[in-house]
């Protein structure tokens, strides 16, 4: 034991280490952007303040389902608080708020601080970038548009006395539940990102998203109150009403409070309108990102 102990706290410069490990290429890159986008949408790794709106909206969206399931468990199927069809319309106001608050997080700063050239000089293409952001926001929105209704579904099945029979009764609603959730999430995400991609700052982007949804809703409401033939088209001014109409067209189940019920348009109109909304949003995104200078 004659050797002297190594001096403590010495930093050895081991030089630059090369990397021989796996390179995941474009797929890995897209997965990384989706993952980071999801984290950003829910404020993970950010300050507590940036978690308030996304987690608050998520809790508020889940609350009716939790209450309904609790009531189911306590008093049985005497009271039916929510149907699958009207759940999304019921929490509708939360969706534009969530999109307005969180979509700007995903795209505005990359554009404003000119970070995009750093992305585009990596294995992805411009469209890969946009697609990854779209997937991230859609997945986040599914937390509001799909998770609560799935919770309601699960609660109803599990609270029933005869599990098998209940599952048999409810299972038919599942495609509609998933389909409606995905439809709402994808269209809202595309619209939100398209609007945000045109804004210079996060605050403007948030305002623009709210404006599109609120103005549409308010104008639609005014039209409907006035009557005189215009009321038939009122729901087409409100993106949430368009989505509700498309949902009803695809999966059935009318919602009494929705302007779709009051108007007398063929339901396929809403399907076409939804398709136009998503196509327009994707076109705006594609054009906007094609014009970004590297």
């Amino acid at each position, binding site marked *: 034991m004659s050797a002297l102990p190594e001096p403590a706290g010495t930093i050895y410069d081991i030089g*630059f280490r*090369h990397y021989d490990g*796996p*390179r995941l290429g*474009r797929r890995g*890159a897209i997965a990384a952007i989706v993952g980071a986008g999801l984290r950003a949408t829910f404020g993970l790794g950010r300050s507590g303040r940036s978690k308030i709106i996304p987690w608050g909206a998520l809790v508020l969206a889940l609350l009716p389902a939790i209450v309904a399931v609790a009531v189911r468990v306590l008093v049985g199927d005497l009271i039916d608080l929510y149907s699958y069809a009207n759940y999304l319309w019921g929490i509708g106001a939360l969706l534009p708020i969530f999109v307005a608050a969180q979509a700007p997080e995903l795209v505005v700063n990359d554009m404003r601080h000119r970070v995009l*050239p750093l992305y585009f000089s*990596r*294995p992805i293409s411009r469209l890969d970038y946009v697609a990854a952001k779209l997937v991230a926001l859609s997945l986040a929105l599914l937390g509001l548009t799909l998770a609560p209704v799935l919770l309601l579904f699960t609660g109803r099945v599990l609270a029933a006395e005869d599990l098998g029979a209940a599952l048999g009764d409810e299972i038919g609603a599942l495609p509609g539940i998933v389909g409606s959730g995905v439809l709402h999430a994808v269209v809202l995400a595309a619209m939100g990102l398209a609007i945000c991609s045109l804004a210079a700052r996060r605050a403007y982007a948030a305002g623009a998203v709210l404006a599109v949804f609120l103005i549409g809703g308010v104008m639609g409401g005014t039209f409907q109150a006035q009557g005189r033939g215009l009321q038939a088209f009122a729901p087409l001014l409100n993106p949430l009403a368009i989505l509700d109409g498309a949902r009803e067209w695809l999966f059935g189940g009318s919602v009494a409070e929705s302007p779709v019920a009051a108007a007398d348009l063929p339901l396929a109109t809403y399907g076409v309108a939804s398709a136009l909304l998503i196509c327009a949003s994707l076109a705006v995104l594609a054009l906007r990102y094609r014009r970004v200078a*590297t």
Partner: protein
Amino acid sequence: MPLISTRALTKRYPGVTALDGLSVELEAGVIGLVGANGAGKSTLIKILLGLLPQTEGEARVLDLDPATQGSGVRELVGYMPEHDCLPSDVSATEFVAHLARVSGLPSGAARERTADVLRHVGLYEERYRPIGGYSTGMKQRVKLAQALVHDPRVLFLDEPTNGLDPAGRDEMLELIERIGREFGIAVIVASHLLGEIERVATWLVAIDAGRLLRTAPLTSFTERTGHLLIETDEPADSLVARLLSRGFSARADGRTVVAELASNGGTEFALYDAVRDEAINLGLALVRLEHRRHQLEDLFRVGGTDERVA
């Protein structure tokens, strides 16, 4: 196989030709890409990254065609743009690790290499703070780190010393030299500042208005010429007259005289002797005597262009 090669590479925009029939072959090392602003340096880099399609000609990077295999090229190269490109509200660690993953590294490797590379560029405790509060020098280091984190084979640096103070400039140049020499990564440095390129590059590509002026090892750009530069303390026309009468060729430019060595048929030293003798005869004080080398600036002097483009 050269690391990078272009053949008759041309990029035309409506009304402007950014690159005009550029053909070069580049091997590993620190390669200086010099030219005035707007000479086509950034355009060339973007074509090599596969971000911009060329109008005509061919380019190959690491034996891949950037126009059709851009994703493959970009997995193996790093790019540091000229302009600001950093978000303000994330830390350097978070940002560089994210971009490492976007380059295709698994998350564990991305985190490890981020820590390594930030240390190499000289960012320590501050790497956990939001980038918005960084100095220009620190931001340039983050930009360099993100280009280096995925261990690229080739690094493209566009005006890396932009906005830096003299000390920051020295440190950045030192880093670039280390990356080329110690890290063994080929570096293409685009700059309009010849003095900086001279300090780090081993090979030089000079372009002007989208055309290749010259591509050669740095040493050949600065090799000795047969001229002696003489600076005196007053107008030197009389000295020129005396030198001419002794059979040397010489011309004056204010208080500076450029004379050709051995132009009277004698040895190199004959001119030195003549200058000494005539300066004594005329009572001139000599301020400077310099055996002149080619300067990089010569490349861009009017008239200097044609004689060197073979």
